[in-house]
């Protein structure tokens, strides 16, 4: 059943505004099958949003560069497509994106109906006769789908609450039934109670429409509740990836992942205090040598300071850390 | 009339700048360093330095008598080695008249700016800091003043007081107080709302202490920027009023008045009008560019 939908190989993204390039994404590999949901986890500034924008080729024109890598979607390399094809065939049609802040991601002077219709109309214009989607009906349909009465389509964004706005954004993203939905922290800006509602609705719609999803978040709880796969990013690198079990059940972890879990309160185990990860993420304009995490790592070894670790894999689980690769090396020697 | 529902863009920019600025401005040395990196600011400062030095040391460099001394044997001469900018209809050296005229133009621009910024600024700060009824009254009065186009308001004052340098200064001060009042009000409002003022208040600092330690230093940045560019506008207005005969009276040299005198000779001796005009444009341009540069230097994030 698993057919590859998205395959990212060695993707690098740099921002050039001053003299020193800012290395936001430093060679990541990601793959996603049809209908699967991937949780992309990491701190603010780890390069999650940049990765998402790179997939849609929406990086800032002058400053955002992709010096290396490939993004294959449905067998096509997105990085080699023309801008026109990207717009008509991919954006909003096959890949949609939901942005972090619903308050600012809707145009204040257009009705929500118009904004949803827009997503459909511009793709209709490239479709042949019968394939065209009837715009008005579809607008009503998607609004009802996200739980908004279709009668409210002539209202303006300022007449909606935050949670309702995010529903509108979701409706807009799903209007053309995309194959991949990228949700960039879709609930961070919402109240906790609304968060749960919106998430539940999103996973329900995903199941109904069979859409694959990349969920960008820093909330490990959300990931556990709706994702199939998890990738953890740190300083523009994926440091650990695997299935939900690999990350939540397995004993072997990257020290950063251990740190991330340590920073979450656990109600079942009595802990006196949370254990935050000491230090800060490195400055992406001057990345350290070796493993990017080494100066914050409690298990830092000499080799970590000089060499970026290879990826250690165990089934679907992969970890980029010398703790595991080194152990592998030693076992080899022992035999 | 301007009980605008939305702030004008300029005000919005200034407010945003004020806010960004108050969120954490860098040290003076830093600002200076960034300013020196900006080419147009450096060139502007260089040009303004020359103008200021010439204005200040005019007496030492040139004979002041030449400003008004008429020489009918040398009228309407085009620029030459002897007379760099040529001579006017009375045979006076235009360059020397411009040098002495710069004293008048610069003084009028700077004095007016300072006066209107101090008066308008105080009113605006009072309105913002104390709010309530006082704020309402001050704002309604500025609304009324702002319903009168600035040039017209200035003309009225000149009309009532008679044309002279003093009435020119009073007129332009009156005309530009309302704008400055509003600017300072919005800047101070931005600062009063910040957490650090809240914190100062929470830690028991008194009104006066907050005003001296927090509000004045933090609103200084936007005020300096606006004042720099304001001087340019005031110099332009002053020269326009003098051109209309409402400002400095002949034979005193003033840039606008000199161009007015050259009007009759536009066809035969265009240099008489063109050269002083270029000097006015360059001076106003320098103040404007310096203001832009200062703004960027004080808050680098605002630059595109």
């Amino acid at each position, binding site marked *: 059943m698993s057919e590859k939908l998205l395959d990212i190989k060695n993707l690098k993204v740099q921002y050039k505004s001053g003299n020193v390039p800012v290395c936001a994404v430093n060679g990541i590999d990601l793959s996603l099958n049809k209908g699967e949901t991937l949780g992309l986890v990491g701190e603010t500034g780890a390069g999650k949003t940049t990765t998402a924008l790179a997939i849609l080729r929406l990086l800032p024109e002058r400053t955002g560069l992709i010096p290396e890598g490939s993004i294959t979607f449905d067998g096509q390399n997105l990085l080699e497509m023309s801008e026109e094809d990207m717009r008509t065939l991919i954006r909003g049609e096959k890949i949609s994106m939901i942005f972090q802040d619903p308050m600012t991601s809707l145009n204040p002077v257009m009705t929500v109906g118009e904004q949803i219709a827009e997503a459909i109309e511009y793709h209709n214009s490239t479709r042949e006769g019968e394939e065209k989607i009837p715009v008005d009906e579809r607008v009503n349909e998607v609004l009802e789908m996200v739980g908004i009465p279709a009668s409210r389509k002539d209202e303006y964004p300022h007449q909606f609450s935050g949670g309702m706005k995010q529903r509108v954004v979701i409706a807009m993203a799903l209007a053309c039934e995309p194959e991949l939905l990228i949700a960039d922290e879709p609930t961070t800006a919402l109240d906790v109670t609304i968060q749960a509602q919106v998430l539940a609705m999103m996973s329900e719609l995903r199941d109904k429409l069979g859409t694959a999803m990349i969920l960008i978040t820093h909330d490990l709880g959300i990931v556990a509740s709706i994702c199939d796969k998890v990738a953890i990013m740190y300083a523009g690198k994926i440091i650990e990836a695997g299935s939900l079990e690999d990350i939540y059940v397995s004993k072997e972890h990257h020290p950063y992942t251990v740190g991330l879990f340590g920073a979450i309160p656990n109600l079942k185990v009595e802990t006196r205090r949370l254990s935050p990860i000491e230090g800060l993420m490195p400055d992406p304009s001057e990345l350290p040598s070796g493993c990017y995490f080494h100066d914050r790592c409690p298990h830092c070894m000499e080799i970590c300071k000089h060499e970026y670790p290879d990826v250690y894999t165990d089934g679907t689980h992969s970890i980029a850390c010398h703790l595991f690769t080194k152990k592998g090396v030693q076992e080899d020697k022992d035999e | 009339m301007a009980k605008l529902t939305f702030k004008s863009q300029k005000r919005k920019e200034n407010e945003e700048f004020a806010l960004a600025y108050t969120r954490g401005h860098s040290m003076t040395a830093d600002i200076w360093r960034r300013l020196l990196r900006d080419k147009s600011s450096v060139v502007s400062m260089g040009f303004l330095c020359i103008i200021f030095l010439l204005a200040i040391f005019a007496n030492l460099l040139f004979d002041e008598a030449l400003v008004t001394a008429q020489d009918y044997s040398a009228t309407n001469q085009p620029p030459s080695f002897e007379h760099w900018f040529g001579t006017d209809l009375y045979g006076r050296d235009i360059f020397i008249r411009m040098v002495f005229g710069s004293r008048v133009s610069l003084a009028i621009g700077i004095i007016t700016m300072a006066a209107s910024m101090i008066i308008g600024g105080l009113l605006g700060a009072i309105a913002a800091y104390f709010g309530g009824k006082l704020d309402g009254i001050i704002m309604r009065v500025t609304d009324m003043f702002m319903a009168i186009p600035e040039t*017209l308001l200035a003309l009225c004052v000149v009309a009532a007081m008679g044309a002279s340098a003093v009435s020119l200064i009073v007129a332009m001060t009156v005309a530009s107080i309302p704008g400055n009042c509003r600017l300072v009000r919005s800047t101070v409002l931005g600062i009063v709302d910040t957490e650090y003022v809240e914190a100062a208040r929470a830690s028991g600092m008194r009104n006066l202490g907050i005003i001296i330690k927090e509000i004045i230093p933090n609103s200084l940045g936007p005020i300096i920027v606006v004042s720099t560019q304001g001087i340019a506008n005031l110099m332009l207005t002053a020269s326009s009023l003098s051109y209309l005969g409402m400002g400095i009276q002949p034979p005193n040299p003033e840039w606008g008045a000199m161009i007015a005198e050259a009007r009759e000779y536009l066809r035969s001796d265009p240099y008489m009008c063109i050269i002083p005009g270029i000097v006015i444009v360059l001076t106003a341009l320098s103040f404007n560019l310096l203001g832009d540069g200062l703004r960027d230097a004080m808050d680098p994030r605002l630059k595109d």
Partner: protein
Amino acid sequence: MVKYTVKRLLLLIPILLGVAFIIFTIMDFTPGDPAIRILGPESSVEAREQLRVELGLNQPFLIRFFEYIKDIVLNLDFGESYRTGNPVFEDVFARVPVSLTLAFSGMVLATVMGLPLGVYSAVKQYSKSDSFLRVASTVLVAMPTFWLAMLLILVFALYLGWLPSGGVTAGWMSYILPTITVGVPYGSKILRMTRSTMLEEIRQDYVRTARAKGVPEKVVIYKHSLQNALLPVITTIGTSFGAIMGGSVIAESVFNMPGLGQLIVLSIEAKDTPCVLACVLLLAFFFAVVMLLVDLFYAFVDPRIKAKYSK
């Protein structure tokens, strides 16, 4: 909306009264005796005294102001010109068409020039044409109106002989240079404002949303960004109208056009207080009306404001 418009029209009254009071007060400081100005220096003391009583000049300040306003409201009577002896209303109204034509054509030129070029400059940020427009608009903003007018006369009237150098005898041809004079500097201001607002709007989240759903770049810019950027730009255009009327005082005197601006200058020179007062009041009135239109237009474009008003 109707309610709001009526409310805003009613609000004009206190503002105009305030304006009248300010101008009346300032002009009251004018030194010299109006009676001497009207009757001439050789007139007898008795005649002057009689005239003062007739004109109500020996009344206290506030009563004079009240009488002045009363006459305007009831009879459209702005008093008599000291200079010509005619009713001020006639002198002033005869000159309104010239001034309004100039101010409106100037504003139209400023908008037609500033808005599209500002958008173009923002869209082509960092390009050569953007740098050129930035430099040109910065220089034009720093140019004194009267000097620009003289340069235009020099080139187009004196050297090329294409256009008249003054007066209004040549029909619309005689409005071309004055319109450029008042329009271009404010067009440059609008250009700068439009550019910076557009640059700001292009970076907004909703623009990214529109791009992400596959909306063509042209629509993103001209529909989404421009519509939002228009709001602050409209305000600038509105406030420029006041400045353009100020600028037309200068343009009218350089180009020798029989408008309100020229009348103001003449009246100030003649210390003709009633006439100055009437002209300034009238211009302030036009300005107030334009600002009212701007506010209404706002409500028309921005649903958020419309909603606020209909409450």
